[in-house]
């Protein structure tokens, strides 16, 4: 059982991960880093679910767990596809800088 005051801390941690991920998305120009940021973002969301699922009022909720498991697998897939895109982009244009890629489009 997770005490309520600790829940707040975990929610804060989840928010922190989310903000970190967003910040990375805003600041980075590297496609690989973008993928990393997305993964962190997703982790933040997962943590949110699990933290709520662990609170005494809600009880341990298997649905939340199964959703998160599904999402983790999807997250893995996202990473795989995103990385393959990055590799392809690199093979095609020789760069993984999204600003440069955008310029190539024009």
């Amino acid at each position: 059982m997770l005490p309520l005051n600790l829940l707040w801390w975990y929610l804060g941690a989840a928010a922190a991960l989310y903000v970190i991920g967003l910040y990375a998305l805003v600041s980075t120009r590297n496609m690989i880093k973008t993928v990393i940021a997305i993964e962190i973002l997703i982790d933040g969301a997962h943590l949110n679910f699990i933290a709520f699922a662990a609170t005494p009022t809600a009880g341990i909720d298997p649905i939340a767990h199964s959703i998160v498991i599904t999402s983790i697998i999807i997250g893995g897939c996202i990473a795989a596809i995103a990385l393959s895109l990055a590799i392809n982009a690199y093979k095609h244009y020789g760069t993984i800088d999204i600003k440069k890629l955008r310029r190539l489009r024009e």
Partner: protein
Amino acid sequence: MIDFIFHFTMIAAMIIFGLIAIEHKNLIYSAISLAVMSVFLGIIYFILNAPYVAVFQLVIYAGAVTVLFLAAISLVTKAKGEEED
């Protein structure tokens, strides 16, 4: 009290490695930081009574995804002198 400290430690470590993962210039380090962060997250899941989630987290994120990252990085990184970030 000890319990709380353990929780805080885990959270802090996770966030710190997350920050490293996005801030480090070297992509390899970034990927490894991400893996470490995932490990800490897995521990947190264990603490939060979610053992299956923790297992999946460790297997997929800390394991498979990291390997993917490393492979991808090795494919896209050029030799010396190329621009970064």
